[in-house]
């Protein structure tokens, strides 16, 4: 329910403005305040009994339990079963009339003695104020693409992090979730605009929060989230706006009675077993290994057959024997060595051996690491206000056990928002302050990227053979120590040993402001914002003697990071009304500074594993430490003019000029935009046949910038003393090095902003007697002069690459949102849907058209993703496989392919030059979706309400990197069931090459074999709410009480064979302050934690 119009409410609004003096669609707050002043001035008037009735505007039904309050007093009442009330009030009093599910109204008594009030259901309307850059605007006057969601919708989602509320709800907003407890979220607006950093700008209560993990903030505090997508709305943020702007506003109190709101929910997160990747049983794996050896004929000398440390010796795969014990080889149950059981938890002992019984039934490793986890969310807020002040005070707690064992996330938050009026309301001061402490526990607390990484815990779960037991006979962990089992680590052991690792974050985020209105319509506002983050990470690494490549010492490291960002903005706005013309002027100045420092230390050899013993001082050897930091500053001027004529023709113009410390020669950049709107349905010529009751056309154009690159790029060369990479033992001491200096980074004094030019055309319409509203936007976003660290010739020896302005990317797309509302007696329902597309293309890579930008390496596959002229960003790049060679003659007639023989993949000779080499790699997949969509259905019947919300992605491809381990003969280790369909002379239609230990290297090279359909549909939420009727709530002494049951992600439809398809966005690097978080590769499943499903029960109540 966003971005929508409602003619019904528009009409109601018209009714309103006639009936009620004091509410206007303009700067509502100001006018309310004037009403209040009026009221205060004449409060001496005599009080008379006033009676009235409240009815629903739509069906005329009387409303029971409506609260009627004389403003500024404690005098109030509620309506009876006939919707009637009586109250004592003077003619100058204002009545506040409120009811759950309806908009609060303010009615001036005047000379009325019998007031008839038509209550309007609380849905968004034309006059709704949307928070935009440095101000608020009525939805009617917005000429660009702005989407928002309100508190109610956010509250209906059991989300951990506020940015996740946008997934599927807002057209054009793409969300990537990290599946683990407390994981990060990646937000992309209107596709991938650049090969540089794509993070949007987050403004929370006027404070810039660049990137970072927002999971430390309490989502219950949020009043609204607004996304500025086009230039006319976002360009006011100039140099930081090109990836879109997300404006988050937190709740504040409302004048009137004190409200206490409590919400509690509890639930269970889980991942169903049906999603676990399917693996070979121990016997199947043994046969696979034997066959690979037999086919390669290399078990020694000239003899065929196999010879494996675990599976024995033989000439056919059926002869494999599963051992009773995988370690030591040949051990049996009555082995005398069993007495000498080794305790892996005692770090002082030397590994002797472990008696590991083979798990002949097969360990389901995914089942071993994934377990349901309990979670809970509580929040309490107290809010209220009078004429001169309003406030909200809230506390919240969120606790989640991850579905990955031994991982947790906890958050405690505290909020204080208030506003005070002084000097006859000419000056308002206020603050929004939150203090948030969060703790991530377990393996994901570590500083390194532990998710979606080829060395991640998930990747290890794919790789460890199923014959390996979770535990050995002595009560220790089992592992791959036995030989012939590969080098994967026991993921359960690793998770268990990391269970006390912590990432603690204290985030203080807030702003204080003063707003003065010396002359009516002229408002000066000064806001000082601070975003401060302190982070402490403790990471303990134990010995893992059960692993084949075991580490036999303990390490503890501690990392501290301190981030301090502040911004100070001053704006002056003036609202001017000249007959049919309405003007709004805004000018402003803003400065901001970002600083961070990090230090870390580590030591080895902890004599005890006790958690309370984990301090750096306790470690005995290998003292290590380090530190680094960064700083940048921005200074800006901006202005905006909004003009509308007869509330029918709208326009706005913005300009912003930014200066950034990140640039030297081209420090300053200017960004302009313009937008136009036309309420064409207001024109006389517009047919009033009732089909289209409202139509607004809008168009906008403008420029925005992106300066999101690491600090200090201006100068030509930097030399950094570097312990690791530039020290040398010049004296030959063997244990001491002299620290040198090396060239660490190229520079470029000439770089300038990356600029996005966005054209946006759309319409908003209301059809069929307000039953349907539609919003449509077409956009063309062209990013030019991308700031890229091009890969320079290695011949230059550059350690870190310099940034250049290189290349353009274009994103074109459409966004549609449709909502349908209907009422059938007590049954009310609405269906909403939105659909977004974008087509992404790199339209220039600078002068050198052959330049490409590679994604990150994945293990030994060297270039999975490519960014090159004419293709989408992050396109998958590799060989095309045209089946499998059946016989020698097929090999002979095919192009010269290294290692080709019957049973190997047949690589396509793309360039038809008779040789298979690098030149034959081509685009093999596109990680971008054809479209994404969200659907919601809301049904209410009397006190019951049912919400369904689904979200999906279609047409994107994933690179399932895990196939490298599970489908090919890479590393000894577990294989997946697809290997059962390997080619052989008896299975000529097999999909995989002949199993063989003698395998040409190209076989598992990056190829079309890895590409899978990544589309999915997830039922994000299904929620049934029961609201207690007023008669009961009154008895209980509460204002409202709702109970709900909710399922999250309970239905997932996908063809993807990996753990979870929802990895289409990645690179969740929260070090954006250093300008990383690029998207040169996306959609590669390197082993991502799954997104859990949940069942939740909750209660919301208010006093």
């Amino acid at each position, binding site marked *: 329910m966003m971005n929508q119009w409602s003619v019904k409410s528009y009409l109601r609004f018209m009714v309103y403005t006639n009936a009620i003096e004091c509410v206007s669609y303009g700067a509502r707050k100001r006018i309310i305040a004037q009403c209040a002043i009026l009221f205060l001035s004449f409060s001496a008037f005599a009080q008379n009994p006033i009676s009235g009735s409240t009815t629903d505007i739509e069906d005329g039904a009387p409303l029971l339990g409506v609260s009627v309050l004389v403003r500024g007093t404690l005098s109030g009442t509620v309506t009876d079963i006939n919707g009637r009330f009586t109250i004592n009030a003077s003619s100058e009093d204002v009545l506040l009339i409120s009811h759950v599910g309806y908009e609060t109204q303010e009615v001036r008594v005047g000379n009325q003695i019998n007031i008839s009030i038509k209550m309007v259901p609380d849905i968004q309307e034309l006059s709704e104020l949307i928070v935009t850059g440095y101000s608020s605007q009525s939805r009617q006057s917005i000429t660009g693409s702005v989407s928002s969601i309100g508190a109610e919708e956010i509250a209906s989602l059991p989300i951990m992090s506020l940015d996740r509320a946008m997934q599927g709800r807002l057209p054009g907003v793409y969300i990537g979730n990290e599946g683990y407890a407390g994981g990060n979220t990646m937000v992309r607006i209107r596709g991938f605009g650049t090969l540089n950093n794509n993070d949007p700008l987050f403004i929370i209560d006027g404070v810039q929060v660049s990137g970072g993990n927002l999971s430390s903030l309490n989502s219950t505090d949020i009043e609204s989230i607004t996304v500025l997508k086009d230039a006319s709305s976002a360009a006011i943020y100039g140099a930081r706006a090109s990836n879109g702007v997300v404006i988050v506003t937190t709740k504040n109190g409302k004048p009137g009675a004190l409200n206490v709101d409590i919400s509690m929910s509890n639930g269970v997160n889980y991942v169903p077993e049906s999603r676990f990747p399917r693996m070979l049983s121990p016997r199947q794996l043994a046969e696979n290994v034997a066959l690979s050896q037999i086919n390669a004929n*290399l*078990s*020694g000398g000239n003899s065929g057959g196999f*010879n*494996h440390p675990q599976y024995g010796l033989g000439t056919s795969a059926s002869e494999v024997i599963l051992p009773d014990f995988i370690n030591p*080889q*040949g051990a049996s149950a009555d082995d005398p060595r069993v007495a000498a059981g080794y305790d892996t938890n005692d770090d002082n002992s030397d590994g002797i051996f472990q008696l590991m019984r083979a798990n002949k039934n097969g360990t389901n490793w995914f089942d071993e690491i994934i377990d349901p986890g309990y979670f809970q969310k509580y929040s309490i807020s107290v809010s209220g206000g009078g004429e001169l002040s309003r406030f909200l005070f809230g506390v919240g707690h969120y606790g989640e056990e991850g579905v990955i064992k031994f991982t947790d996330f906890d958050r405690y938050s505290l909020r204080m928002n208030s506003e005070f009026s002084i000097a006859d309301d000419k000056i308002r001061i206020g603050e929004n302050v939150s203090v948030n402490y969060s703790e991530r526990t377990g393996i994901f607390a570590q500083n390194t990227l532990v998710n979606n990484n080829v060395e991640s815990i998930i990747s290890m779960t794919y790789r460890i053979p199923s014959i390996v037991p979770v535990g050995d006979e002595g009560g220790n962990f089992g592992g791959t120590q036995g030989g012939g089992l590969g080098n994967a680590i026991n993921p359960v052991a690793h998770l268990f040993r990391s269970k006390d690792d912590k990432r603690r974050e204290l985030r203080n985020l807030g702003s204080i402001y003063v707003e003065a209105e010396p*002359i009516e319509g002229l408002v*000066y506002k000064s806001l000082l914002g601070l975003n401060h983050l302190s982070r402490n990470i403790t990471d303990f690494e134990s010995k893992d003697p059960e692993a084949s*490549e*075991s580490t*036999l*010492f303990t390490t503890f490291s501690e990392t501290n990071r301190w981030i301090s960002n502040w911004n100070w903005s*001053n704006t002056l706005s003036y609202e001017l009304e000249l007959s049919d013309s309405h003007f709004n002027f805004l000018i402003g*100045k803003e400065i901001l500074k970002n600083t961070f420092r990090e230090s870390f230390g580590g030591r*080895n050899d902890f004599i005890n594993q006790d958690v309370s013993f984990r301090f750096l001082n306790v470690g005995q050897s*290998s003292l*290590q430490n380090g*530190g680094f930091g*960064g700083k*940048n500053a921005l*200074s800006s001027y901006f202005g905006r003019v909004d003009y509308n004529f007869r509330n029918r023709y709208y326009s706005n113009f913005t300009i912003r000029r930014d200066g950034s*410390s990140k640039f030297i020669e081209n420090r300053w950049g200017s960004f302009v935009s313009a937008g136009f709107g036309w309420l064409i349905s207001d024109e006389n010529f517009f047919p009033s046949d009732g089909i289209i009751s409202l139509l607004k056309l809008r168009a906008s154009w403008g420029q925005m910038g992106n300066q999101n690159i690491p*600090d*200090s790029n201006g*100068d030509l060369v930097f*030399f*950094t003393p570097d*312990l690791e990479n530039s020290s*040398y*033992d*010049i004296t030959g001491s*063997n*244990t001491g*090095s002299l*620290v*040198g*200096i090396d*060239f660490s980074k190229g520079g470029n004094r000439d770089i300038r902003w990356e600029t996005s030019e966005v054209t946006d055309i759309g319409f908003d319409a209301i059809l069929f007697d307000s039953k349907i509203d539609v919003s449509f936007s077409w956009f063309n976003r062209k990013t030019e002069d991308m700031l890229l660290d091009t890969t*320079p*010739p*290695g*011949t*230059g020896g550059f350690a870190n690459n*310099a940034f250049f302005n290189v290349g353009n990317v274009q994103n074109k797309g459409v966004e549609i949102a449709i909502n349908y509302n209907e009422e059938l007696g007590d049954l009310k329902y609405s269906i909403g849907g939105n659909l977004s597309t974008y087509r992404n293309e790199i339209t220039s890579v600078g*002068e050198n*058209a*052959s*330049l*490409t930008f590679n994604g990150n390496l994945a293990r030994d596959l060297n270039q999975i993703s490519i960014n090159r002229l004419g293709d989408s960003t992050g396109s998958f790049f590799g060989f095309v496989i045209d089946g499998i060679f059946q016989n020698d003659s097929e090999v002979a007639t095919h192009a010269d392919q290294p*290692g080709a*023989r019957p049973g190997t993949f047949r690589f396509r000779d793309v360039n038809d030059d008779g040789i298979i*080499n*690098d030149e034959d790699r081509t685009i093999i997949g596109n990680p971008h979706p054809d479209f994404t969509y969200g659907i919601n259905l809301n049904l209410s019947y009397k006190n019951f309400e049912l919400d369904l919300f689904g979200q999906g992605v279609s047409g994107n491809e994933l690179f399932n990197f895990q196939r490298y381990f599970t489908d090919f003969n890479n590393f*000894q280790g577990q294989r997946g069931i697809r290997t059962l369909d390997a080619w052989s002379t008896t299975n000529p239609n097999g999909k995989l090459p002949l199993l063989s*230990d*003698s*395998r*040409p*290297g190209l076989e598992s090279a990056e190829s079309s074999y890895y590409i899978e359909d990544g589309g999915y549909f997830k039922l994000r939420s299904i929620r049934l709410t029961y609201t207690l009727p007023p008669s009961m709530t009154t008895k209980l002494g509460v204002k409202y009480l709702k109970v709900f049951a909710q399922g999250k992600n309970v239905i997932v439809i996908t063809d993807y064979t990996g753990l979870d398809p929802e990895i289409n966005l990645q690179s969740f690097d929260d070090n954006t302050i250093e300008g990383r978080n690029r998207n040169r590769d996306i959609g590669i499943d390197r082993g991502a934690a799954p997104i859990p499903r949940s069942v939740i029960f909750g209660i919301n109540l208010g006093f």
Partner: protein
Amino acid sequence: MKKVIRLFIVFNLIILNACDDGFLEVSPQGALVGAESLATMEGIDALLIGAYSVLDGWNGIGEGAWRSPASNWTYGNVPSDDGYKGSDQGDQTPLNDIERFTAIASNPYFLTKWKVVYDGVRRSNDVLRAITTARKIGTIDESDIETVNIREAEARFLRGHYHFEAKKMWNNVPYVDEIPLKIDEFKITNTVDIWPSIEENFQFAIDHLPETQPEIGRIASWTAKGLLAKAHMFQQDFVAAKILLDDIMNNGPFDLLPNYGDNFNVTFNNSVEDVFEVQTSVNDGVTNSGNGNWGDVINFPHDGSPFGCCGFNQPSFNLVNAYQTDPATGLPLLDTFNDDILTNDQGIDSTEPFTEYQGTLDPRLDHTVGRRGIPYLDWGDHGGRLWIRDQGFSGPYSPKKNVYRKSDVGNLTSNSGWTTNANAINIPLIRFADVILWRAEVAVEESDFETARQLVNRIRARARDGAFVSESDGSPAANYLINEYPTGHPAFGSLTEARKAVRFERRLELGMEGHRFFDLVRYRIAAETLNTYFAIEGTRNGRIFLAGANFEPGKHEYFPIPLSEILASSSNGVSSLTQNPGY
């Protein structure tokens, strides 16, 4: 209205006119900017340490030190007949292709090696630039002038060395001096032969370096002479090489160590035999002992052994066979060494009985190769199959020269990192034995076979007279028999025979030290040697992964120029780098 305008003006004056320029000047944090800040004695010294730091093949680009090891095991051993990739078939798969000569230009190994050697060049040039600037702006004290001259020569030596590494690998490579600064200026053509430039650097170093340096890790003039001689050998310029080799042998400070095996013992770092050696250090405060010999950390026996990782760089059957000696003469079996496979424990469990080969062997075998039943330094007997990651794939042997002793664990091995196998055994790049054997090669080419025989005998005598690998009771671990070539031996009777004998000796003496592939190319016998090797290893010796491998003469002598480099050095679609023939 006027009042409004006035207020706007006041706002403009007060708020908007903040002082921006100072606010926006933010210096880089934790870094020095610009070459001038380092144009001092301290800066020159620090930059030069940075240039030395890349000698170990590890500059922190994070792509795996084994892709650019100082020991060159990935390029000198694996693609040669000395060794296999080792490990299991699926680990480090790009190396399978290097081994089989199926590697293509995008193989990530080549790119890392390229980046590392040219980073070394870059750092050397940064030293030279700082020196030039310092001299120009006069920041060098009178007393430091001579030191700076020496530093300049050291930097020139390093620049030559790094280019030499590139030359060996790719032949057609760009030469980078201290002139290029901007990225486009590094798009240098590789069609000009850089041998003259390499030699010029070494000659400068010879002319300006002292014979000894106060710090043992610093290059002295004798080292420069050694590397220049090596450059001549690579060009078959035997006349020029001879002068330098004679100078080194007659006037230099070097000698053979009495015991062959001591060359690979950390205690004998910087010994009298080391002409050019990379310094390594561990537990020096650098994360994961990054200054240890990281290029070789995966070249240790696998999980059943005390090392745990990762079984790479395994000696070949062919190499082991080469250490057989004639039971009558104690001389190598130059023509028949590979007729039979030396008895080994292939396919035999560690728990099953195994009797070692009883025939006569060159004692250097057991300093070079770890094999079952023979003491593996002070770790006890090599555990056989239990120690091998995948014997079915890569045979029964383990590398040995890079392996540390148990007695050095914790002190001279790393105490941190995912593997603690990084250790402080320096990496020999030129041993004095190298020099002697080059001189023998020169003698052969001059048809001075008697000199060649004597030089070879000097090598063999040391191997014979030094300590053998022995059991705990002091008895030899195997049936060692090695002798000098007697006067008039037919092995030194003709150019063909003498070449064979000297080259064979070089293989035995320097086995698994990263020279073999480059030597085969230098001798111009790579194709015949390796194709024969592939045929026999791939079938009779059971290394099926080598079956069908083919060395194509005219192509595989040099590796392909990394694809990324070709792309990165292109302007308007035209690359300044030309791919090597055949790729």
